[in-house]
């Protein structure tokens, strides 16, 4: 190896390590703050590693706000959004990609319209629907705007279009009807597309703040994101406790990410390339 190659590699590693440090530092600081007492967290110069580790912040935050309920609400929200995305989007996507029915391209415009318009334009009427149904402060209200997913329909349609037609022809010769072609032949082949869509939908639902703030003001029905906003509203300056709450809120998704890194990263890369 040439000397210039080695120095180039050292430069690249140095830049990437500094970058990694900047990316990770806030999380480290979040954790370190969460195990300090309030007094230690406000010392100048800042104490990096506290002499005495305080786990009490976690207990206090857990007792102050219904975190177990936040978890349940968030899991239900993510679960239902993903289930709806996988079933309804794939059905519609298959039909748009593979069945040539009259008016198909015109109807597909409806999907494209939703895709292009910022979600804020739907929020007030969607909120009024929730009010009319008397669904305020329910899980149903949280899930509602995600029942149909134009992005997912578009993504999976592209995916189905890219699969060779021969696969289906064999099924037709065997006398499969459309549902069997979709469910038994195409769905298993679309696994990577479905995984990508699930991950994308899950991250999106997990992070969403505006909609939960609008429909679920009752603390028992908040997901983690809105719960954290509420925590900050109540305990503005007790950073050790706020950081403990933040750790509660980010850990499950980060653990999932560490376990399914390949799927997460490929999934996100797919959503980019398919557009």
């Amino acid at each position, binding site marked *: 190896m040439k000397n210039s190659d080695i120095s180039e*590699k050292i430069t690249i*590693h140095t830049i990437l390590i500094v*970058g990694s440090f900047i*990316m990770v*530092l*806030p*999380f480290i*600081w*979040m954790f370190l*703050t969460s195990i300090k007492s309030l007094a230690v967290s*406000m*010392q*100048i*110069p800042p104490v990096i590693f506290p002499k005495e580790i305080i786990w009490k912040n976690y207990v206090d935050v857990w007792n102050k706000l219904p975190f177990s309920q936040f978890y349940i609400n968030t899991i239900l929200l993510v679960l239902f959004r993903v289930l709806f995305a996988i079933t309804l*989007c794939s*059905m*519609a996507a298959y*039909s748009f990609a593979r*069945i*040539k*029915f*009259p008016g198909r391209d015109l109807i597909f415009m*409806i*999907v494209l319209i939703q895709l292009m*318009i910022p979600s*804020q*334009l739907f929020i*007030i*009427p*969607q909120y009024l629907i929730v*009010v009319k149904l008397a669904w305020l402060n329910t899980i149903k209200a949280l899930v*509602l705007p995600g*029942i*149909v997913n134009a992005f997912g*329909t578009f993504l999976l349609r592209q995916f189905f*279009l*890219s699969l060779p*037609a021969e696969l289906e*022809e064999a099924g*037709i010769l065997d006398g499969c*009807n*459309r*549902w069997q072609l979709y469910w038994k032949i195409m769905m298993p082949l679309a696994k990577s597309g479905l995984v990508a869509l699930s991950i994308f939908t899950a991250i999106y639902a997990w992070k969403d*703040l*505006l909609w939960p703030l609008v429909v679920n003001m009752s603390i028992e029905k908040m997901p983690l*994101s809105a719960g*954290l*906003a509420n925590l900050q509203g109540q305990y503005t300056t007790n*950073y050790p406790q*706020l*950081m403990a709450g*933040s750790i509660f*809120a980010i850990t499950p998704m980060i653990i999932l990410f560490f376990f399914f*890194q390949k799927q*997460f990263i490929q999934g*996100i*890369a797919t*959503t*980019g*390339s398919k557009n």
Partner: protein
Amino acid sequence: MAKGNKEDISVSPQTMQRSKKNWNKKAIDYAWGYFMIAPTIIGLLILNIWPLIQTMYLSLCKLSGFGSAKFIGFDNYIKMFHDKELLKTILNTVEYTILSVPIAVVLSLILAVLLNTNIKYKFIYRTLYFIPVVSTPAAIAMVWKWLMNYDYGLINYILSIFKIDGPNWISDPKFALFSLVIVGVWSCLGYNMVILLAGLQEIPKTFYEAAEIDGAKSINKFFLITIPMVSPTLFFVVITTLMSSLQIFDLIFMMIGNTNPALPNVQSLVFLFYRYSFFISNKGYGSAIAILLFMIIMIFTLIQLLFQKKWVHYE
């Protein structure tokens, strides 16, 4: 639409014979087609298309609380021209976008290019850069607010070591927008990087080998091969970053908040939309702001589409 795709398998030459049986088959096929799109289309009509029309109508109405809407024509839009707060908010949103999009795109491209080189432990870096993407923005906003705290924040402490008097990142109107840009860029780097990296990996190695034989330097290879080849992906990243920047809300809601003196200098259109629609409960004006946001997004997107011809190369 993809050509050469035998979408209409059922209409292959054999089945074209006009026997009644085959016509039935086609009708059944159509029925399946409509049946399978029905849930999505009905959902979109109820949850998106009808609300879209309603928002347009509400923007022409005065409506407070749960009371019925009263049609007032273009009053909400006329009011906008005299609303200094709104004009400032438009400027804030545009300024935030113009600052954060180029920084975010350039930094994530640099990272992607570095990660696309032949080095070890790539996957570790990739994982670390991606963590913010899977973290709740509410939590991210809080920890940055703490890091940027004027009195006890780590950042100002580090600056003080270098004898720099750190600013009040969050409450100083001159710095608050800049602070939001830092956090916004930091949050989206990993996402953009992963997408760009996928684009970079599709560039055939032979292109670079040929350039090396011709004696091209790294910097030339970057501008003559990498950029043109990755430009469709880069364009996608620019558009998505642009859209999300114009719609910034979470960070302002969590980091700045309603009582902060810097709020008028940083609040975004979505934040103002939220305040009018659900705090002040003036949903008519809120709807008008949403329509305005849409028009601004359209303008930015159109500009991008026009510029696209100059630098995006599709194969």
